[in-house]
């Protein structure tokens, strides 16, 4: 069974601290400096940094390698792992390798479909789904074996994360699926970006009604909007994204040069509201290719200094 916290993130959450995580997308190339540069922007501003795994199905530096660069710069990574590209043999092997390199947090995902990426002609693997991946990491941690039941020499003990989208359909089923992820072994949840606070609140209430907020740490996702165009694009084209009309109008209502500031203001208001919600144990800031904004956001949200 689990005793010692696997990571700093786990320790902070178990101490009841309100945590802050951010996201870092590896480069489309082998340049490790990109990671170090993004890492430097985030260091000390957040408690852990997610490293995406070929997000939007575009070939990038592997999340394991990028996570190791962060580790070496003194930043705790959350390695994202999608089941789109690797079969169960490769996934398990990479979990062992990541752990051996010192990576202690994992976020288990299915992944964006390859048809959205730059190589839609690729085979999609999906040997197992994210639920199965969560269970696999837990089996390694608590059973000490791989999926075949074979005992592992120094089994990886990872802190296990999963994603949840409170805004996807069907709404009623979303809480049941969260419960399922917790049963499978999720310790923490990072949600889809929240713009529709009302709907998120309803989801949290349903989750708490089922006793789920007692069993899992929910980190609420936020993404600052850069422009009215980005807001409109995301609302229309990003699968599972819910941006209410009022937010779109607000973004469109300010002069272009003030739009980014308005986006940050909305983000700060959202964070303030989220901090008041029972069951929300932290925030996850996904500032896509806008990492330099993370520290100011955390600072203005009065969440600095980090422990």
């Amino acid at each position, binding site marked *: 069974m689990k005793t010692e916290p696997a990571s700093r993130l786990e320790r902070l959450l178990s101490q009841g601290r309100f945590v802050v995580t951010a996201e870092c997308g590896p480069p489309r190339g082998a340049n490790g400096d990109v990671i170090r540069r993004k890492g430097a922007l985030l260091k000390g501003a957040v408690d852990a940094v997610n490293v995406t795994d070929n997000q939007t199905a575009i070939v990038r530096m592997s999340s394991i390698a990028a996570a190791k660069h962060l580790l070496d710069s003194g930043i705790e990574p959350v390695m994202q792992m999608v089941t*789109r590209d690797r079969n*169960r043999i490769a996934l398990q092997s990479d979990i062992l390798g990541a752990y051996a390199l010192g990576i202690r947090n994992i976020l288990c995902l*299915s*992944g964006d*479909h390859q*048809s959205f990426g730059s190589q839609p002609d690729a085979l*999609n693997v*999906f*040997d*197992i*789904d*994210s*639920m*199965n991946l969560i*269970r696999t990491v837990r089996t390694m941690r608590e059973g000490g074996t791989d*999926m075949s039941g074979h005992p592992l020499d120094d089994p990886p003990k990872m802190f296990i994360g999963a*994603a*949840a*989208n409170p805004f*996807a*359909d*069907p709404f009623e*089923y979303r809480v*049941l*699926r969260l*419960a*399922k992820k917790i*049963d*499978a072994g999720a310790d923490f949840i990072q949600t*889809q970006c929240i713009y529709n606070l009302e709907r998120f609140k309803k989801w949290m209430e349903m989750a708490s009604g089922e006793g789920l907020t007692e069993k899992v740490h929910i980190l609420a996702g936020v993404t600052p909007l850069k422009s009215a165009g980005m807001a409109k694009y995301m609302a229309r084209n990003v*699968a*599972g994204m819910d941006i209410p009309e009022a937010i779109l109008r607000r973004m469109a209502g300010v002069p272009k040069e003030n739009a980014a500031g308005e986006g940050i203001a909305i983000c700060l208001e959202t964070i303030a509201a989220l901090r008041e919600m029972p069951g929300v144990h932290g925030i996850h800031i996904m500032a896509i290719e806008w990492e330099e904004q993370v520290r100011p956001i955390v600072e203005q949200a009065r969440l600095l200094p980090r422990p």
Partner: protein
Amino acid sequence: MIVGEQKPIKEILNMTAPHHRLLVLGCGTCVKTCFAGGEDEVAALASLLRLASRKDGRSLHIEEFTVERQCEDAFIAEAAEAVARNEAVLSLACGAGVQAVARRFPRFRVLPGVNTTFLGVLEHRGVFTEECSGCGDCQLALFGGVCPFSRCAKKLLNGPCGGSRNGKCEVHADTDCVWHLIIERFTALGRLNDLRTYVPPKNWQPSLSGGPRKLIREDHTL
């Protein structure tokens, strides 16, 4: 049934370019039902090829023939004489039929005229949808009779993913999210809570991942 569609005429013209005597061979079973390779399609394609070759000043003699099923030797045998009169066969059967014909006539070139796409059903007139990928270990009992292996773009066993919206799949806006359908089924049956049960990873061994499969029915072998 096996669903397929005729290849683009350009591809067929390129493929058949070296030949002067061509047998267009139809199949009267699945591909007939999906309007890809029955007698009518053989006739239509043959006239198209005749026209195109005349336009290009190419000498091409085309013969038409359709058998009941190209995946069964006894039916293929009926085409033997017609095959012998030609240089090559353009088969409008599914991939299995094309191969069965090639096996039967080792000295003739056999070309595929159809893209075999999936195992599906006739949804309504002119619309066919994929419903099964022949995984060799049917798990429909777990999913209320709706198959996520063949119908979910991510083969999720514990779906839906976060992209399902208004009952549609994030990958194709005009396709139902199969997990939405599964949830609807369980809701209608009053058994939504059954979906809370964790579905373990699929055993892909009985599927194509174990190589080509074979079915032996001892009670029917000679």
